């Protein structure tokens, strides 16, 4: 099937092949949709390394698209947001990737929004998401559900899920991260709301605007502005300077969490 549609919001490009997808998302200002449930195996596309995909579209709905087995040794999705509406990317999974460069590279002056994005794989160097310039990167902004990250960082060097760019906001996200990875640094703005972080990380620096997070990961340093920005499993964390430290047993106790005003919902 060739590309159908005209690329407008009312009549988006519909694509079902990798080649057409690259063409469509590279079109400035375009609206792009993938046929539902598409699965593309990078071993069949470019096993030696995926090329950079220039994203100039303003809206990409993967409709459940899964891109598997991508070898990423140069910036993969290069998102150049040049319009005030920014770029919205949703319903895409990039799984079993092997990356030594950025999976998502954001530049341009305007914001980048991700909804229902799943990233899983192995990052050997570089930052998984690189915020080069411009306005904020929002992960799960007004989406039906959050974004998920399941990434091994097994490099001996310190690494970042996101680099220390400006205004990075996570909401309703789940992180399973392993290795010497930073979630924010003392000098940047890692904002997280309603997020669950587990695995084994190096440091997590919540910004003061963060709230309602649970950090259940082995971590060397937990810091940030404000107080009570997170429920932190103190059995797994050292150097906790912000948030409410609880024991592992308390973290599993709904009544206790209720008592410290971190209510646990009861299904009705």
């Amino acid at each position, binding site marked *: 099937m060739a590309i159908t549609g005209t690329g407008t919001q009312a009549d988006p490009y519909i694509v079902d092949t990798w080649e057409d997808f690259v063409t469509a998302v590279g079109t400035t200002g375009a609206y792009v949709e993938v046929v539902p449930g598409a699965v593309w195996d990078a071993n069949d596309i470019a096993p030696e390394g995926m090329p950079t995909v220039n994203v100039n579209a303003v809206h990409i709905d993967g409709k459940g698209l899964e891109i598997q*087995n991508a070898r990423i040794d140069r910036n993969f999705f290069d998102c150049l947001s040049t319009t005030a509406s920014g770029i919205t990317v949703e319903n895409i999974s990039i*799984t079993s990737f092997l990356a030594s460069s950025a999976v998502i590279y954001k530049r341009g002056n305007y914001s980048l929004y991700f909804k229902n994005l799943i990233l*899983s794989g192995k990052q050997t160097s570089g930052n998984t998401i690189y915020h080069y310039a411009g306005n904020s990167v929002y992960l799960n902004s007004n989406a039906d559900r959050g974004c998920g990250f399941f990434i091994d960082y097994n490099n001996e060097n310190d690494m970042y899920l996101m680099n220390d760019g400006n205004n990075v906001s996570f909401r309703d996200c*789940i992180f399973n991260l392993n290795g010497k990875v930073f979630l924010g640094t003392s000098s940047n703005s890692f904002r997280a709301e*309603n997020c669950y972080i587990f695995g084994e990380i190096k440091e997590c620096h919540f910004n003061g605007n963060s709230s309602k997070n649970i950090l259940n990961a082995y971590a060397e340093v937990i810091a940030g502005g404000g107080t009570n920005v997170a429920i932190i499993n103190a059995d797994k964390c050292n150097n906790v300077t912000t948030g409410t430290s609880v024991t592992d047993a308390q973290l599993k106790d709904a009544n206790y969490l209720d008592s410290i005003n971190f209510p646990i919902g009861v299904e*009705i």
Partner: protein
Amino acid sequence: MAYKLTFDLTPLIEQGNISSRGDSDSNTRVRTGGRIAIDLPTSATITAISNTGKTLQVDFLGYADSSTNTPICDLYWYDSPYTFDLSQYSGIRYVRAVIKNSDNTNISPADIASAKIELIAPNAWYMSEDGYPKYSLFPELPASPMEKPYPKALWRIDPQINGGYPYHELMPGLVRKGPGAFCNAIHLTRVRIPESVKTIGEKAFANTALRSVTIAPDCTYSETSFPPGCEVNFYGGGGQYGQLVDCNGVEILDCEAVRIFVKGE
């Protein structure tokens, strides 16, 4: 799916009122300090009990964010307890409450024996199967960060490949030694191997029911190519090889009962 969440407001009660311009002083009102984060509640029940025996009335305020003073809704005054139907107000993500005596007399935080708010919301933290809290909006993660077949450029180690040293699928000349073409075909009793076949790999017919095979005399094979006891014959009676016989013309077999072929001068 919906969840009920209960917040104890008692420790949050402080003196003062809330208006569309924000907090203001008042001797006849007490309010919750700060905002409670809750995603898109569809109803809220506020229950406040007085220490003085007076009837309390409650005011519910819903906000879109954590800082804007103007609420999405400001619903007042209702005798406690009262359930507010919020289904017509979209976008509430933070809530507050104000409490007063129904007779508008002075009130202080010490006059509030207890106060709580029960919220019904489509999403919430809940206890997941692993015993830890989880938020209902979280996506399902894959079972593993890397799943088969893996990127071809991923280094791997397999005792059967590259001598057990690291390899990846893009390596030139990669030698894969699999378990054998017909290995473990346990019901295989007969096979015809053409004379054109010149190599039979290790364990190619291991663990089969073969009792004899015939191969080209110049075909190379391993002692593990065929199951133990399988008789290996050669096309043309051994080609340039001959069956080893004793002086009486009786075939000589090796200790595995396999014919022994020898090549003459």
